[in-house]
């Protein structure tokens, strides 16, 4: 086995059809979608196709899709765009302690501008209690933003219940969902969930980096982040990233052709990974097991071995994983997600994240499990005192 890539929550490998679509768009469909001539229409057709595919997958209409530069921009557009558009109705916003850093940084910016933000706690598995959402929402609240799948531990939030709880207190509150880690591994249907804004990203589903989208419920007014151009319904000015969107489209096409079996396969790989790694002495799973978690992300701690050191030891064995808490010099930058779970210190420092994708095979999981067992044992030996 040459290499086993299990860092798919960070980014995924592009599918051959994606590479092909990007390359074709760069070489041939190089026109500007806004141009009146045929070259412009060719490029526009690419946008239209990708937009249609995403709309079908999300079960929304094509006019509700805004292409962006990725998850970070989608989140910023949703959060700031709503807060600004509704600042006269209220200046209170609700989110959770375990959101992605792009979401948290948008909220911190808003706090600096005078908005107040409630950061909801989570339980030991990383789940938000809808009752806490109900309690947090007040007359002043204009936005609730909760991620669907946590990027570090894979825990799935009860989005439908959260949206209902929020609306019980304030029917016109806007609900945003960061579904960047959810798209591709579980159904994401805004209308079923009852939410207004949904962020997704291309490179987490084997598409290119630098492209993503935001679902904006028809009729919802939000303020653009920059300029008021003519593209993307006035919400995102600038010439569209045609090659990126072409690649995103190819990834969406592959996703649309998938069956439920693929998700079952992923889920069983995750279960196998968990069962076998928990055989390691002292090992613990951070987050949820079974249906409460996404099928592609699992976070473990192996006390006594620093996450970062284990990442490098695995890299030596051609297995690529991630760590939530990065060790810098003498201080450990502890992951805010793991901290919110209330993990003990040694579990915090020794955590790694393993994330799968539809390209992951059974053999790769077996190889990775063997490598992790070997690396943990050998590091523990190296770090022991005689």
């Amino acid at each position, binding site marked *: 086995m040459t290499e086993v890539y299990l860092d798919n929550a960070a980014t995924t490998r592009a599918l051959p059809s994606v590479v092909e679509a990007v390359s074709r768009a760069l070489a041939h469909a190089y026109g500007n979608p806004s141009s009146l001539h045929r070259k412009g229409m060719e490029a526009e057709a690419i946008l239209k196709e990708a937009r249609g595919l995403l709309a079908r997958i999300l079960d929304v209409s094509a006019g509700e899709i805004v292409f962006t530069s990725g998850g970070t921009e989608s989140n910023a557009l949703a959060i700031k765009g709503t807060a600004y558009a509704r600042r006269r109705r209220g200046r209170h916003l609700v989110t959770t302690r375990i959101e992605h850093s792009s979401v948290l940084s948008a909220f911190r910016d808003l706090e600096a501008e005078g908005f107040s933000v409630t950061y909801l706690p989570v339980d030991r598995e990383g789940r938000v209690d809808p009752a806490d959402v109900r309690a947090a929402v007040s007359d002043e609240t204009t936005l609730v933003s909760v991620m669907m799948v946590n990027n570090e531990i894979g825990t799935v939030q009860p989005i439908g219940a959260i949206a209902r709880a929020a609306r019980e207190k304030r029917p016109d509150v806007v609900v945003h969902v960061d579904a960047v880690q959810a798209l591709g591994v579980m159904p994401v249907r805004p209308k079923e969930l009852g939410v207004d804004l949904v962020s997704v990203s291309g490179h987490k589903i084997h598409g290119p980096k630098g492209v993503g989208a935001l679902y904006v419920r028809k009729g919802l007014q939000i303020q653009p982040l920059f300029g008021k151009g003519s593209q993307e319904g006035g919400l995102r000015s600038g010439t569209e990233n045609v090659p990126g969107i072409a690649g995103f489209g190819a990834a969406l096409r592959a996703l649309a052709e998938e069956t439920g079996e693929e998700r079952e396969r992923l889920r069983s790989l995750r279960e196998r990974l968990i069962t076998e790694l928990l055989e390691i002495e002292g090992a613990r799973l951070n987050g949820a097991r079974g249906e409460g978690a996404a099928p592609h992300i699992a976070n473990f701690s192996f006390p006594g071995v620093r996450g970062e050191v284990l990442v490098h030891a695995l890299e030596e064995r051609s297995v690529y994983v991630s760590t939530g808490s990065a060790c*810098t*010099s003498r201080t450990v930058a502890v992951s805010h997600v793991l901290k919110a779970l209330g993990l003990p210190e040694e579990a915090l420092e020794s955590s790694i994240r393993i994330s799968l994708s539809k390209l992951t095979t059974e053999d790769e999981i077996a190889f990775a499990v063997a490598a992790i067992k070997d690396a943990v044992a050998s590091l523990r030996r*190296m770090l022991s005192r005689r």
Partner: protein
Amino acid sequence: MASVILVRYGEIGLKGKNRPAFERRLVENVRRALGSGAGAAVRNEYGRIVVDFGEAEAVPGWALDRIRSVFGVVSVSPAASVELSLEAAREKAAALVEERLKSAAGPLRFKVETKRSNKRFPLTSPEMNARLGSFLLRRFPLLEVDVHRPDFVLHVEVREKAIYLYTEILAGPGGLPVGSSSTGLLLLSGGIDSPVAGWLAMKRGIRVQAVHYHSFPFTSDRSKEKVIDLAAVLSRYSPEPVPLYVVNFTPAQTAIRQHAPAAMVITLMRRMMLRIAERLAKERGIPALITGESVGQVASQTLESMAAINEVTSMPILRPLVTMDKAEIIELAERIGTYEISILPYADCCTVFVPEHPETKPKLEAVRRAEERLAIQELVEEAVATVERIEPAALALR
């Protein structure tokens, strides 16, 4: 008419019989600093170096910057070189003054200072001063003469083949040309101090090679990349790139950690690093080691600690930073261009294993006893045998 940079050197002019060798070295270093595509001729001319850009309108700023980073250079002046005639000197002087006035807010006080080494030139220095001075005063109403507190000095040098005119004297780094002293092996970590120590050693003409201790998987390849980047920055101050030897320190480090008392780990690690460095140096005919230690900066840099560490080698260890404050070191690091790289947050090999309370006054007896449990020679051999040399060519490209 030509544009030139006049390069002055001080200390090396005093070195008696060695002088020609020093001068050749400096000329060569200036040449290399400029690179082959500079389109400039570099020659030594009566105790100074002239970098001649021929017909170029002015000397390029980048060339000035590069020469100002060459050790041994005391000062530089961008100058114009004209033929040996008063007419030519007047014309160029007027152009230089006009340039000055353009960027000035009001009137300027000036004086002319002529040096004449070419005694066949018909006018004496005082005569040149007077002639050029009065010409300029007539030509530019905004000029005034002030020989005591001038805003600028128009320097005129009458030489064998040309007259040089300039108004600026810019400081160089001083020191001796790199390569005029022997070679030292620098212990280069990813921190702030050791690159500065290497730079200061270069300042005394020492050619520097570097050794880095890498402890994969306890430190990442990014921290190694960072050290390579530091070596590349140091290479800018050297006529040839600084070669970097990367030692796989993991076996030694784990052996120490497994067998030694926690408080003594740092002392033993440093002793190991010195032993390995000494071996690498000897194999390469390098007579001295260089470290970034500064007294009292961290617990392991007490005099007792230095003594305990130093005991393993009889090779001289240069510690250019030994009495400097952290603030002074940081200031230099910023000036050299290593600071921004050094503060990148990748763990270097000392930090991962540092105990909470390292011994500040290690006793030699105890240190030796702790080492009895280690296969010192074998660990040194293993480290030396697996050393990786980062090709200087790879550094030059950065």
